[in-house]
């Protein structure tokens, strides 16, 4: 070890109550407490959030874009899952 850079963490911020945490970027940090400090000092300097998550980048399991076809295409033809698939007379409101 000769002063290497620290591992990478992904940062998620909840902008305000009622919203989900959203990915905003990443930071390098030696451990989870420091990752939170660094996330705070980097990504919430302008009142951007009320809550922070940090996740080690290596711990994220991502879908494979090359498999995007098999992963997401089957949802394409299931139009009956969408409300616009159903025709309802205008007179009947609020369904």
């Amino acid at each position, binding site marked *: *070890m*000769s*002063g*290497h*850079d*620290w591992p*990478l963490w992904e940062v998620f911020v909840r902008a305000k109550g009622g919203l989900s945490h959203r990915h*905003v*970027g*990443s*930071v*390098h940090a*030696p*451990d989870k407490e*420091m990752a939170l400090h660094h996330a705070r000092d*980097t990504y919430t*300097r*302008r009142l951007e959030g009320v809550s922070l998550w940090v996740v080690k980048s290596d711990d994220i399991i*991502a879908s*494979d*874009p*090359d498999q995007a076809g098999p992963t997401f295409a089957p949802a394409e033809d299931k139009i009956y899952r969408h409300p616009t698939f159903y025709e309802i007379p205008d007179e009947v409101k609020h369904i």
Partner: protein
Amino acid sequence: MYTTELDKQPEKKNVTPIDGAEDPALVEAFEARVAADEFIEPKDWMPEAYRKTLVRQISQHAHSEIVGMLPEGNWITRAPNLRRKAILLAKVQDEGGHGLYLYCAAETLGTSREEMIEALHSGKAKYSTIFNYPTLTWADIAAIGWLVDGAAIMNQVPLQRTSYGPYARAMVRVCKEESFHQRQGYEAMMHLMAGTPEQKRMAQDAMNRWWWPSLMMFGPPDENSPNTERSMRWRIKRETNDELRQKFVDITVPQAEYIGLTVPDDALAWNEEKGGYDFGEIDWEEFYAVVRGEGPVAKERMKARRDAWDKGAWVREAADAHEAKKRAAAAA
């Protein structure tokens, strides 16, 4: 800022051909996606040349932000009042943050920040030439905010729509945060020009020294910018160097005149026909010398960055060692 191609002198060499080993169908699909203004994301297939160009451009941009902390940082401890001190510290801190966002964006392409920093310290990687000029007086801080950040914004705004998703998102954040930088610089300059004779002298002197280097920030003229065509096609770059430079001059000259500053260019004249200013020849020899690392304070800048990294090594090591100990204790 600071996204111009700095790596080479203009060469007669043509655009690097896309590696013949790559599947033409994949290349074609990729080009079609980019042409349709779709975003490319980290794990998507991309031509190697696209990946390489992006790593170079984004890391160059990141290095510029980090090295760019130094000329202004030179005046934080000497800011003339508490308000200016807080503004300047916040601004230079923002630049550090921008460097950080950009390194992270480049890391999604498979190059670690450490590798990029090493490339900077070894002189292999470049950063914007503008930061190799010294900040002599307080007016330089005003000039940097107004001119250098002004040029930066001009370069960066189009990059919010650049084709690589993580880069584009980093740029959105950067542009949002940077919006105050240029305004504070111009405001500081206004104060100087409304001040004492000494202050006016400082302001004009800063204008004289920073004007031309600011114009150089947009990079070499289009005819000498070897990769512009391909970068435009790939939506890595969205406007050419000369287009952006012209825009900058047209916007900035009236701002200078408004507060009584003289633009140090005898050839400067309004051209009714093109609806913009004509301006003098840029000293490209100086530009390339600075790119080669021969700028007035290039050695100081590099030394400061290497020192920070080397003197921080034991801190980074210590935190890693502590984490390893805790992990070992938890496992036991």
